[in-house]
């Protein structure tokens, strides 16, 4: 740990630099009613260069939220509607022969942007979904013999319908693991839905304004990295992740046969980064256990593989995470 870190100075710096968080939130709230957790999750992804997978039944404003976030930032934005007949070249681009120049030229695909909205990503087969793997992890695209670095910030925001729905393909584990957060979108509350109904009847749809530049995001991202993460919190994060791998060592032997595989090292990394970003959003220069808990479900839920036995018992990853959080000692 860096003992020279001055938390007070950091707090002041964060107080100053995190002002845009309120501005973005306000702009998004103009368009999206409710969905506070969704907005926080999008901000966490934005601040940590992490990709976000949004899952929910149709009509819960997943696409609208991502569109609105992209609108508030002056950056290149691509929306790709995933369909069953989409091809990898439709995403990343391809080599096209130019008769004029008598040579092949690179035609870059829509993935060359700052924000990618992969809408209904699970409507395409795995080969198309996998085309995003290199872009998401390496932040680069290889077309033919050439590799192109993607501009920062680069963020994939994917939406998907629950896999039980007809005509959907489950995302491969390697692909899912690359998403920092998997956010489950729930229905709005009664009051929120009443407001939605009123706006739609009145045909009054506020629009968000562009208020930020990509430089602001990159600067904030660098400050998020400075947020102090104490060794105690690090151990707490590792306890949580290791409990998903070896539940029997954490008094959760009942899950030994329920968990096929636990969280990967990405889980620990993203849990730490997500906690830092959450602390930043809360205007704090240090991480507390509450921050870890706040992002834990979104970071872990898609990184725990369940066995058939668990599915037969109707055990979900959320049940497992809840039990782990209830049994792992908080520092």
């Amino acid at each position: 740990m860096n003992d020279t870190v001055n938390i007070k100075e950091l707090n002041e710096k964060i107080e100053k630099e995190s002002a845009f968080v309120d501005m973005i939130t306000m702009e998004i709230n103009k368009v999206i009613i409710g969905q506070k957790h969704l907005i926080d999750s999008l901000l966490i992804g934005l601040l940590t260069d992490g990709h976000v997978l949004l899952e929910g039944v149709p009509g819960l404003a997943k696409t609208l939220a991502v569109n609105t976030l992209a609108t508030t930032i002056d950056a290149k934005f691509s929306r790709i509607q995933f369909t069953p007949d989409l091809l990898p070249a439709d995403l990343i681009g391809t080599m096209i022969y130019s008769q004029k120049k008598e040579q092949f030229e690179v035609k870059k695909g829509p993935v060359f942007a700052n924000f990618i909205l992969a809408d209904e990503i699970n409507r395409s087969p795995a080969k198309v979904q996998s085309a995003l793997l290199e872009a998401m992890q390496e932040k680069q695209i290889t077309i033919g013999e050439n590799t192109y670095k993607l501009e920062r910030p680069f963020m994939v925001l994917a939406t998907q319908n629950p896999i039980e729905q007809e005509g959907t393909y489950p995302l491969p584990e390697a692909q899912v693991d690359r998403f920092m957060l998997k956010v489950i979108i729930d229905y709005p509350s009664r009051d929120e839905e009443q407001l939605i109904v009123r706006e739609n009847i009145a045909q009054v749809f506020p629009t968000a304004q562009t208020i930020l530049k990509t430089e602001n995001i990159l600067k904030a991202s660098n400050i998020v990295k400075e947020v102090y993460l104490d060794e105690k919190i690090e151990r707490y994060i590792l306890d949580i992740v290791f409990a998903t791998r070896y539940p029997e060592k954490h008094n959760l032997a009942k899950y030994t046969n329920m968990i096929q595989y636990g969280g990967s090292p990405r889980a620990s990394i993203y849990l730490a980064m997500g906690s830092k970003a959450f602390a930043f959003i809360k205007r704090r220069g240090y991480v507390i256990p509450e921050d870890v808990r706040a992002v834990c479900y979104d970071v872990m839920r898609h990184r725990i593989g369940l066995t058939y036995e668990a599915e037969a018992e109707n055990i979900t990853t959320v049940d497992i995470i809840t039990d782990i959080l209830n049994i792992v000692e908080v520092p």
Partner: protein
Amino acid sequence: MAAEKKIWYEVFAKRSSRLTLALLLSVMGSLSANSQFVELRTELDTNQILIGEQFHLDIDILQPAGVSILFPLIKDTLTGKVEVLQVYPPDTLKENDNLKIHQRIRLTSFDSGFYEIPPLKFYIRSDQWEDSLESNPIYLLVHSVAVDSTIYDVKAPIHMPVSFLEIFPFVMGGLVLVAAIFVLVWYLRKRKKKGSAFASDRPQDPAHVIALRELDELKEQKLWQRSEFKPYYTKLTEIIRRYMERRYSIPAMEMTSYEILDAWKMNERPEEDLSGKLNRLINLADLVKFAKEKPIASDNEENLDRAYEFVKKTMWVQKIEEAEDDE
């Protein structure tokens, strides 16, 4: 049982029907001085057999040394129903000037009935003459097996003696079971001595006594005085959290600061002042533990006092006394 034939020869003389009596008489007369004999004896070891039973036909020939005997060719059967199983090689034994030849044939029959084994024809040859000799026919009765029409019950299983190897797993299993029962009884008795086997590990001392004792120990350790702020606040909050676990059965060790405060408020409905003090203590402890905060001396003393006050104002004993006072 046996068919025996003795043939007396004069030179060129024989009993064959094919030779004329005249020729016979003339030959006998001229060679009477060299009269010799060949003795043939055929014999079955039994005349009655069960169907399929094996038996033997023994052929014994006694002949002069200068005579050669040509044995009949034995095929698969002697008659249609008597089958030849094996023809043993002849055994020759010299007896004075004679040769004694013995041959054995193994036979059987698979059809019941009365059979005649036809005469066997042997050819005799010397330098001056040759003749043939036939054995007598032999009769054989083949019995069939009597059919028993009585219906018998199914035979009971045969009880074989049990080997040690077979009962070994059961013996071992029994021993393990007895050992397991013994260990279980021993364990339960041991637990009974300590208390109920299902009793919780709740200490004998009340929660506040333990907490106050631990606070005293922390005070004596003088951790913050040695600038060990982090261990000091870690221990201080642990004492409070363990006290809450024992006092309110709140899983405080697995809860975050805000969760602890919420859970406590739901259980206790505390006075505003006490709640505020606990809040300040926990917040400062979080800062020290997670944000390298180095509180001033007065804060450290004040927070220890807050911890004492919190325990004393929420301890179980006081509640009972208050209830008695109300009555």
